[in-house]
């Protein structure tokens, strides 16, 4: 089927670019570094937690174990990953325009819709690989380094989750995070269809992201009424995977808004791309 052939081509193009590996290399360096630092500097936190909760609870393993480390890193990076994903999503259309390769590619007997779908699919596969790698790296390396144990979640106090349930919760958290990152990639694709250079979409994506993030987090009455409709309001919804019990209704309400934003940005992107004149 032509879509799979085109998607294969798009993946080939993505993975032949150095920029596609920037985020992966960055995390390969920084995650072990954080895990090392985490191991060096948590002894006093560990002692404090143990003294405050050990009289009420029995904590299996070290409270600063691999699960807690992975949770800590997830909290830290959810705002940085979008920037790295925008490097690829922002280049997917605009890069071809800037390099003039669309003149060769788009003259083939293939529809603009097929080209668009294949580019979106390839970007989403890249997004998945990125999030999956991040998950494997933080969780896998965290567990290998700091061991298994009950997980501490700091949410309106300290919540202790059993180690046997932690992996399921991480799976849910990463799944919802992935959808958030799909939205980031969709915004980058949307900007990419509009311009002819790869820098614009990256800046555009991050500017929009930061602007909406500010509006959704500022505790001002004037923004309160629109905050439930802003996608950034739900960007930390993955944290709810570690609540007890998991608020599924809230999680899916947030997911609904994220998905509707994905559809909107990709839909507008498709309309722009189908009508676009490829001039240079």
């Amino acid at each position, binding site marked *: 089927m*032509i879509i799979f*052939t*085109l998607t*294969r*081509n798009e993946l*080939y*193009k993505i993975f*032949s*670019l150095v920029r596609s590996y920037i985020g992966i290399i960055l995390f390969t360096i920084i995650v072990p570094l954080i895990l090392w630092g985490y191991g060096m500097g948590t002894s006093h936190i560990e002692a404090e937690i143990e003294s405050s909760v050990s009289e009420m609870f029995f904590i299996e393993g070290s409270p600063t174990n691999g699960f807690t480390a992975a949770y800590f890193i997830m909290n830290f990076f959810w705002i940085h990953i979008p920037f790295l994903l925008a490097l690829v999503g922002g280049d997917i259309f605009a890069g071809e325009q800037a*390099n*003039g*390769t*669309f*003149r*060769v*590619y*788009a*003259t*083939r*007997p*293939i*529809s*603009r819709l097929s080209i668009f779908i294949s580019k979106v699919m390839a970007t989403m596969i890249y997004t998945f690989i990125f999030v999956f790698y991040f998950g494997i790296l933080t969780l896998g390396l965290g567990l290998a380094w700091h061991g298994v144990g009950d997980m501490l979640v700091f949410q309106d106090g300290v919540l202790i989750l059993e180690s046997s349930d932690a992996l399921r919760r991480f799976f849910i958290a990463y799944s919802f995070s992935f959808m958030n990152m799909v939205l980031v990639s969709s915004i980058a694709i949307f900007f990419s269809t509009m311009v002819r250079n790869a820098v614009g979409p990256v800046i555009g994506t991050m500017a929009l992201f930061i602007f909406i993030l500010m509006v959704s987090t500022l505790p001002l009455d004037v923004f309160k009424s629109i905050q439930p409709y802003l996608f950034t309001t739900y960007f930390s919804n993955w944290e709810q995977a570690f609540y007890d019990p998991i608020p599924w209704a809230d999680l899916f309400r947030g997911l609904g808004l994220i998905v509707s934003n994905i559809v909107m940005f990709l839909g507008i992107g498709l309309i722009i791309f189908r*009508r676009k*004149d*490829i*001039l*240079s």
Partner: protein
Amino acid sequence: MTETEAMTPQSIATTIEKQSSPALACYGLSKRFKSIQALDDVSLTVPRGSIFGFLGPNGAGKSTLIRVVAGLIAADKGQFEILGKSSLSGHKVRQDMSALVDRADFYKNLSAYQNMKMLGRITGHDSDEHIDRLLNLLGLYKRRKDKVKTYSQGMKQRLGLAQALLPNPKLLVLDEPTTGLDPQGMHEIRDFILKIAAEENVTIFLSSHLLHEVELICSDIALIFNGKLAAQGSMQNIFDNIGDVTVELEVEDSAATLTFLEKNDLVSQVTPLAHAIRIEIHYSKIPELIRLMAAAKINIFSVSQRNRLENYFLSLMEGK
């Protein structure tokens, strides 16, 4: 049921009609960019098997028409057919067509082979033998594993031709394929175009503002000015209708020849040059003049026309 059994008189008629239809036919194509009317009701026909030159000054609308046909931009009005398939059928109209629009650009961090493989995969023409044959035809086989960013512009243009030939097109659309090349590169591309037309049995639609280039290789031409088609037809027909042309004669005895020409009614203007004599003469009268010169025992070494198409082009422009 076999294919033959399935044929009806209507399907046979349709097949014959498609086989006899032109390689490219445009009907009333119009395109506007803000205040500029890039194409204004352009209709033209490219016969099958021809090397068709599409001429016009910069900004006349050549590239716009080619981009419309190649699917890079949409026309505001009108439609076109490629080998009998209508543009109303969407991207399928380009099933038997391939194009090299403007400068050839590729994925620079990939090799020529990798670029060809990726592009060939789209239409199912990605076998190594096919790719190697085309790279060999265009003289790039030895460098096929090198990244395109190490290629000269001439090599990229040749790779552009190779990629355009990947789907075995019946119509090859080339937009100013020699732009930016040095004289040797231009010569090479011209040779390749003639070779492709002969060996691959491809109709070639070639846009250019280089009149000399078109005159050298094209069998048919069309001229466009300010988005409007000014003329079209076979090169022979157009030359038959050309008025005076410039001809340079290399002769043994220049002085005697000058005297002869100045007295001759066929020649409208005579200019002596360092090693030749330049004359202005009606195109159709050239054979008669040569016969007369031969009868007058003037030894002629060469007779060469200068800027035949340019004269025609300029006369049309002046009339606009």
